[in-house]
């Protein structure tokens, strides 16, 4: 059985990355001719049975006060216990902030091989081999999992959400003991209304060519016309023009949106490392020699202060 960890946001909604994980888990289960089931630990506000549309037949739900707040240690213990109880042979996580915290713990606990950051379904005709992103997006590695139980965390935006509106999953209460978390959550803060960068399908990113934080209005307008998240280059975050969580690249976040629009960014190799898995890259730069054009699909050589507002207008006209 393939067991999918369903990641729940702080407001109780099912994260988009969880739908990707469900779709991936269901496709893998089909390939292996086994069932796909889900696991929910955090409090939810959505109707879980509707997640059956993504191909899971059953969802194990552990309801416990102690799981109110995320704690990698207690969550991992429960995941491993459910996996053992249900005889799961493959566990699927998203390689997002929760998955990065729990999946390695579950792997070490169950002595199960982990492929972190998978970008495709496993090759199962001869062994169990999963392609993952390495060298910060500059290459891929085929990783053989050598253990009976396998754990895969999939990169956000690398697997399409696919559902059939008719499916419905059976919800079962899993009776599992839960330890009180050793970590006490004090507060969580979210930039409300914004699209989380790692999950965003479109990202608008600004570099030093923006000249200063006061000029970000034009990027915000472009982003809102596209329902996009904002990102930036490292010097922009270092200069505190933008918050650190928007920094992408080798030492910042790695993203793989459908569309990445780079504005006033030269395209240094360390920047490209975090964004070159984007499906389509648009570069707006006044320097025709900017290295970013070599990694781009579409480009405009021009003054961003002139081009960006025009692009926003053109998109609104579509």
């Amino acid at each position: 059985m393939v067991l999918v960890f369903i990641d729940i946001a702080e407001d109780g909604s099912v994260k988009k990355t969880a739908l990707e994980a469900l779709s991936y888990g269901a496709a893998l289960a089909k390939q292996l001719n086994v069932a796909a089931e889900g696991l929910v630990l955090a409090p939810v506000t959505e109707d879980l049975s509707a997640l059956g549309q993504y191909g899971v037949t059953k969802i194990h739900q552990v309801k416990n006060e102690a799981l109110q707040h995320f704690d990698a240690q207690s969550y991992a213990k429960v995941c491993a216990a459910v996996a053992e109880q249900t005889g799961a042979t493959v566990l699927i996580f998203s390689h997002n902030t929760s998955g990065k915290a729990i999946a390695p713990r579950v792997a070490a606990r169950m002595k199960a091989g982990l492929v972190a950051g998978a970008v495709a379904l496993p090759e199962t005709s001869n062994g169990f081999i999963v392609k993952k992103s390495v060298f910060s997006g500059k290459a891929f590695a085929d990783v053989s999992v050598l253990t009976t139980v396998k754990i895969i965390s999939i990169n956000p935006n690398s697997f399409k959400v696919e559902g059939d509106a008719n499916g419905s999953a059976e919800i079962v209460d899993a009776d599992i003991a839960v330890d009180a978390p050793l970590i006490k959550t004090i507060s969580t803060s979210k930039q409300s209304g914004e699209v989380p960068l790692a999950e965003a399908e479109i990202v608008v990113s600004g570099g030093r060519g923006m000249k200063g934080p006061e000029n970000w209005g034009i990027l915000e307008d472009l982003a809102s016309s596209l329902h996009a998240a904002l990102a930036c280059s490292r010097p922009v975050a270092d200069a505190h023009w933008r918050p650190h969580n928007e920094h992408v690249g080798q030492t910042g976040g790695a993203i793989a949106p459908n569309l990445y629009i780079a504005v006033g960014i030269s395209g240094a190799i360390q920047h490209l490392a975090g964004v070159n898995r984007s499906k389509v890259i648009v570069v707006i730069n006044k320097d025709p020699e900017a290295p970013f054009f070599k990694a781009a699909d579409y480009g405009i050589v021009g003054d961003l202060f002139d081009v960006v507002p025009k692009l926003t207008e053109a998109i609104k006209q579509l």
Partner: protein
Amino acid sequence: MKILVCISKTPDTTAKIAFTDNNTKFDAGSVQWIINPNDEYYALVRAIELKEADSSTIVHLVTVGGADTDAIIRKALALGGDEAIRINTECADSFSIAAQIAAVAKEGNYDLIFTGKETIDYNGSAVGGMLAELLDLPYVSLATKFELNGNAATVTREIEGGEEICEVSLPVVVSCNKGMAEQRIPNMRGIMAARTKPLKVVEPAAVEPLTSISEFSLPPAKTGVKLIDADNVAELARLLKEEAKVI
């Protein structure tokens, strides 16, 4: 207070990524090696800051790797830290690295273990969590701020589209993300001092890897950029919608 900082070596960020032996090995040919930036800028510098705030604090560095890792660990010692431990074995997979570090960590009785948020070559973001599980300690991942208050810590960590502040008592394993500290440049005094700091080489524990890499590949090259005239911006919007179908 005793802190252990996990240091790994990675190819320089500008290194050409190529493979040999039928694409089964990284071509290290002319590659320059550096301290994994996440380990250096965020984990190591924050540990040094904690030592500067309380001089009784002891900072140990640990790395899993062969003798060719010594140059990197000396570079790390030049930034700070009291001594380094190198576990003398080639890295097999995240789990075996974590298991090797766990063996050293158990002996050292550390209050605090820092890792980087991920290696920039393997991109697992996994060793810290595995290490925490093997030591049965709490784990705060992707920490952007870390403040000590006595025997506990207040840590800010990244979550999707925001952050979370939590409290945890020591000992704890923390993976360090941008925001924890700022990059430092080693000075001459540090470099001189690093030469005489102890670098202990210990033999590895018996650990079997759980995964292995069978082959590497490179992403397909871009076919070339389509340039649109700056006077015809609307054409770009049209192409994105009708040709690329991404908006």
